[in-house]
């Protein structure tokens, strides 16, 4: 009888082409809209994730930091990290590798009459390894550059573009604080995060930066290093705290005048932002589920009258409730799966197409959960609204089903 019921359902699907088509279409649109939206948003997520990964791993950053009441208060007690602090940490803590002090300044750069404010960082040669960002063209800053205080600069790609440095920027000179620096390398592209370019920066040897900005770089200075063994991270943080407090002569009852942050902390602060985005995404997914669901429901409910009469006729000539239910269940499952499968393909296609057409949009990414959610929800609604009214109609006296309008 099962095979009979399957044939009956398939026969009913084929003999009511328009109705079957509309039902399939409803489910298809439901699934496709969910998948498209999720694919696009997951694409954005994936690219944010990737950029966070690019920030490097097992990196510790120490920055000058105090809890200041006011700006005046801050300027009075302005904390500092010195090159000597950096040397002391490197000497005293063996777990530290690739230690590099960074001097960061927002500065004007000039080239061929064009001016731009960008962030200038004075760095060590180890910067590449610590940050996991490497030079793409030319070379990076070397130990010799540091030793001889060379006026050389490695540029982020955004500067090359916006300053119109041309096809072959290496060898040209730009002005930083009115001092000419020779371009020796171009960093690899990092893209953008929340609409801000991550390639808008210039790197110079830390010794040259000190010459440029003075011995004390003030609150812009930071020290970055990597920890060889991640398990030692907490111990290293503790050691840094002890050494720096001693060097800065901080009494026991006073707080640190620096802040130690790890990659983990950065990821945490990112995930705060992503949580907000996730909430918005869930809202959008919810709306597309609703829209898709209403579409499916509508088509199913529109046919209820016609189908109730059909049920009346079938019962009048000998169908049992079970016969009716299994026919409608098989019909709904078949159409839902058909619509669901096409919907998934269409949704993925649309997502990729949209991601391609919007400039600078990251590639779409369809996670399994979105497929399962879209498919499960749409087929669920399709089956529910296909079978539930049928079940109700099948419980009626045949004559009441026949009279339904």
């Amino acid at each position, binding site marked *: 009888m099962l095979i009979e019921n399957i044939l009956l359902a398939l026969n009913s699907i084929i003999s009511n082409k328009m109705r079957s088509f509309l039902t399939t279409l409803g489910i298809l649109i439901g699934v496709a809209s969910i998948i498209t939206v999720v694919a696009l948003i997951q694409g954005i997520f994936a690219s944010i994730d990737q950029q966070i990964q690019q920030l490097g791993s097992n990196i510790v950053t120490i920055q000058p930091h105090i809890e200041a009441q006011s700006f005046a208060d801050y300027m009075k007690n302005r904390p500092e990290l010195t090159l000597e602090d950096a040397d002391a940490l490197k000497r005293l803590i063996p777990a530290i590798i690739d230690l590099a002090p960074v001097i960061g300044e927002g500065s004007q750069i000039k080239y061929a009459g064009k001016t731009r404010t960008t962030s200038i960082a004075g760095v060590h040669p180890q910067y590449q390894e610590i940050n996991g960002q490497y030079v793409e063209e030319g070379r990076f800053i070397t130990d010799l550059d540091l030793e001889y205080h060379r006026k050389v600069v490695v540029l982020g790609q955004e500067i090359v573009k916006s300053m119109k440095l041309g096809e072959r920027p290496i060898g040209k000179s730009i002005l930083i604080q009115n001092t000419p620096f020779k371009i020796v390398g171009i960093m690899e592209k990092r893209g953008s995060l929340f609409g801000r370019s991550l390639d808008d920066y210039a790197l110079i040897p830390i010794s040259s930066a000190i010459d440029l900005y003075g011995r004390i770089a003030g609150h812009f200075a930071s020290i970055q290093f990597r920890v060889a063994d991640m398990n030692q991270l907490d111990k290293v943080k503790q050691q840094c705290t002890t050494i720096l407090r001693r060097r800065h002569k901080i009494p026991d009852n006073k707080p640190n005048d620096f802040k130690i942050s790890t990659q983990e902390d950065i990821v945490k602060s990112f995930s705060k932002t992503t949580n907000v985005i996730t909430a918005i995404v869930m809202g959008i997914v919810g709306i597309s589920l609703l829209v898709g669901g209403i579409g499916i429901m509508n088509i199913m409910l529109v046919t209820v009258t016609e189908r109730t009469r059909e049920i009346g*006729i*079938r019962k*009048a000539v000998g169908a049992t409730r079970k016969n009716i239910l299994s026919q409608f269940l098989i019909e709904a499952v078949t159409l839902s799966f058909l619509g669901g499968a096409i919907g998934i393909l269409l949704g993925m296609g649309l997502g990729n197409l949209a991601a391609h057409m919007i400039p600078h949009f990251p590639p779409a990414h369809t996670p399994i959960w979105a497929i399962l959610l879209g498919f499960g929800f749409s087929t669920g609604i399709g089956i529910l609204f296909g079978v539930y009214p049928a079940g109700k109609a099948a419980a009626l006296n045949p004559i009441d089903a026949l009279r339904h309008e």
Partner: protein
Amino acid sequence: MLIQVEDLTKTYLVGTEEVHALDHVSFTVEEGEFLSIMGASGSGKSTLMNLLGCLDTPTNGRYLLKGTDVSKMNDEELATVRNREIGFVFQTFNLLPGLTALHNVEVPLIYNRVPRKKRLEMSLAMLKAMGMEERAHHRPNQLSGGQRQRVAVARALVNSPALILADEPTGNLDSKTTLELMELIRDLNRKGNTIVLVTHEPDIGAMANRTITLKDGKIIEDVKNAH
């Protein structure tokens, strides 16, 4: 005794008003009888037929079919009765619009679990007997009223039920097709089928060997017809 009806009552509640569509009706029908039911519009003929066809449930009273109380049957037993014991011809045909004539006739056989090949043979033979084999692959909306009615009759007969219930089967037919259909029904009766037929027209009612007349849900006359 094929049909035994005792105090059969059907009351509809329309708003706060009770409509006694059928009011304590009692009668019996023997196997092989040809009974016609007559009466003015609204007298309760269709209500009675729907109850006899197990398509509706009475408010009160008993209906025994072959000695079994129909009200005690469950869904599956009722389905079996509708499928094998009764062939019902509706005034409004009630064919499935998506199916061809052949597949409409086939439906009762599906629920009777007749194998597919046999089903199609039987359905086609039935349509042939109705003179409809040339229209076997037409859908109901491609058929005339008379043709649809013949498909509906074919569907009612295909499982060879002992009892045939026809609610104004000639209501939508011209006089020529009416006579053809009546000839067919009389033929079935001669072959032993029990027939209950609702009609407005006295000369059609008179073709039966017994006529019950309803008025306001009550039997006002029950006579044998001399032929």
